[in-house]
């Protein structure tokens, strides 16, 4: 369970929040490498809109922790330019919802640069911030943005679900020589968990089995891991043992872990926060039918946000979001359980 330590040994742990874990990862990397800096809106004097960078201005000064104007296209592009020159920017989007404004620089500059320069100009940088919905933030502030970052080759994408993963994956993202999007969750920032005190890096591309089970696989990523775990606990009460595979990294994608889970349970539900059409889940279904067709005892079901912009009203928002009930339902359905509503 939880983030696996890749540093070996029984490392000393502290229970800290996801927010603090991200902060720890940035500090860890900024301590060891002067070329790492943090730039974004409100990251410095305000300690971050969600306080992720708390104390970092005081610790590193305004050369390395920099408040930007509200100019997403410009500051993302500026960070790409700095990365072209070999620096390692951490570009914070207050939320990824605002990064549509910057998408041209993400895709046309960051993702394609190395290729068009024949390997001369790597872009060793991080785009990070929360993705997806929080509570009642309405349509423009509640969008899961994974598809926009994972479709084009050239960018990597990780989605830590726990504090330990947050520390280890963000650290790995900063060290990686490619542009890596780190998609967090506003609703995760207060989640607490054990995190190694010492230097901690989780290699990109390694999924994590957050719960083992024989009957059905719930494969997921990001904050939906917690929904999946709740669903698994609910299913356990019906004596259905679901395993919860947290992909953690969408690109690189841990195909082996996916296939192993499919081979074990033969039944899969993909759970994600975003919309269905050309979502991450579509890709995972396609991959599974392609490489594990014969392992499947039922079609892979997907649980996603309703295919609507996120409504503000509390009751509609709850309906639109993928929830525990829908996951339980889907698991029962792939198990061809009686009483399943179709």
């Amino acid at each position, binding site marked *: 369970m939880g983030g696996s330590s890749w540093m070996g040994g029984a490392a000393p742990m502290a229970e800290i929040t996801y927010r603090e874990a991200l902060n720890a990862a940035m500090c860890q990397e900024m301590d060891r490498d002067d070329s790492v800096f943090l730039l974004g*809106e*409100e990251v410095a*004097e*305000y*300690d971050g*809109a969600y306080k992720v960078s708390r104390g970092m201005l005081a610790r590193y000064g305004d050369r390395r922790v920099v*408040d*930007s*104007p*509200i*100019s*997403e*296209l*410009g500051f993302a592009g500026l960070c790409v330019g700095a990365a072209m020159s070999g620096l390692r920017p951490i570009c914070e989007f207050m939320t990824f*919802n*605002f990064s*549509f*404004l910057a998408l041209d620089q993400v895709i046309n500059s960051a993702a394609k640069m190395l290729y068009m320069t024949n390997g001369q100009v790597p872009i060793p940088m991080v785009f990070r911030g929360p993705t997806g919905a929080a*509570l*009642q*933030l*309405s*349509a*423009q*502030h509640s969008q899961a943005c994974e598809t926009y970052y994972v479709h084009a080759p050239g960018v990597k994408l990780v989605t830590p679900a726990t504090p330990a993963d947050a520390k280890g994956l963000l650290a790995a993202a900063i060290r990686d020589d490619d542009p890596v999007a780190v998609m967090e969750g506003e609703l995760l920032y207060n989640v607490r968990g054990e995190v190694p005190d010492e230097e901690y890096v989780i290699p990109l591309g390694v999924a994590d089995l957050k719960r083992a089970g024989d009957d059905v696989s719930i494969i997921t990523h990001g904050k939906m891991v917690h929904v999946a775990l709740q669903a698994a606990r609910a299913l356990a009460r019906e004596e259905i043992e679901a395993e919860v595979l947290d992909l953690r990294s969408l690109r690189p994608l841990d195909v082996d872990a996916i296939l192993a889970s499919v081979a074990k349970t033969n039944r899969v539900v993909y759970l994600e926060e975003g*919309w*269905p*059409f050309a979502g991450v889940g579509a890709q995972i279904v396609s991959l599974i039918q392609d490489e594990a067709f014969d392992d499947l005892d039922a079609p892979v079901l*997907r649980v*996603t*946000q*309703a*295919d*609507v*912009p996120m*409504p*503000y*009203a*509390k*009751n*509609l928002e709850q*309906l*639109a979001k993928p929830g525990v009930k829908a996951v339980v339902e889907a698991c029962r359905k792939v198990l061809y359980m009686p009483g399943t509503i179709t």
Partner: protein
Amino acid sequence: MAQATQAPVKNGEAPAAGDDRDPAANRLHGFSREELHGLLADMLLYRRFEEKAEEAYAIGRIGGFCHLHIGQEGLAAGAIKPLRADDLVITAYREHTQAIAKGIPPRAVMAELYGRVGGCSGGRGGSMHLFDTTVGFYGGHGIVGGQIPLGAGLAWAIRYRGGDQVCVCFMGDAAVNQGAFLESLNMSAVWQLPVIYVVENNGYGMGTAFSRVSVTEMEVRSGAYGIPAHTVNGQDVLETYRFFEGLAERVRGGAGPQFVNAITYRFRGHSMSDPVSGTYRSKEEVEAHLQGEDPITILRDRLMDAGLLAQEELETIDAAARAASEDAADFADASPQPDPSTLYDHVYAEINPHGRLFLDGRGGSHG
């Protein structure tokens, strides 16, 4: 210290305030006693309405982000009240009082904050997305700067149809650093669109003073596109009203796009989670503005000084404002939540007879 604390430079068009009392005629700045009471009543309503919203937020009736306009009411009244009913207003997310000023009933605004069907956006939009096209209020937009090209487009449509309305497009001071600002102002100038861009310059974008993200003053930002710039003291509702009254007529007459730097100040935190002072502005700074720059106090004092407002009149007006806010909250409270069966309504205006529009396997009846 942000520029909000500078003495606002007054624009030539607006008659100078302070020397225009005409007690014999019962007028101030050319406004009748009735008009003056009306403006005071408007601003008091905005204030009480948002104080009520603040309360409702505290007890969880309102969720999500909620950005109060308290302190900036002079601009809602002063820039919008002089407009014609068929003029258009578009703005950002700090728009409760602007919506009321343009004519959305307080009940419909409050119900929207509550996320109820009685809301002006049916409870789907929330605080940041208030809309009522019947009164010419086009939202309520959450992406900083996102409304600027939309405002240009509304003005485009006016010109396209040969109408004589104007579009007033509000934005915060931080929005002028969005590329959309350049692109929209330039197109507006090239096509001479009937649009007035108004920066509600409260000196801060969240925790960032404008002076930290700009080396120039706000006034020079529109000159690059040949758009005339004006500065107005948004805390003086009478000056502001007269100024926009004149400017709207000039734009109606074909003067082309305009840029207004309206100096104001936000008395609350950026949103409900941001403390009023502490991190990025001192208690003293806020206190000074509360004392000297409250648009409601300023008008009240001027009216009283001029003998145009009695204490009991003030109390009556305020009581009405409080009552309307209570009433709005009661209405909102009583308004039902949206029917769950409407979840897939209004994603598309036209449900094509062929093919599937919703791919989640749930919106089946619609696609």
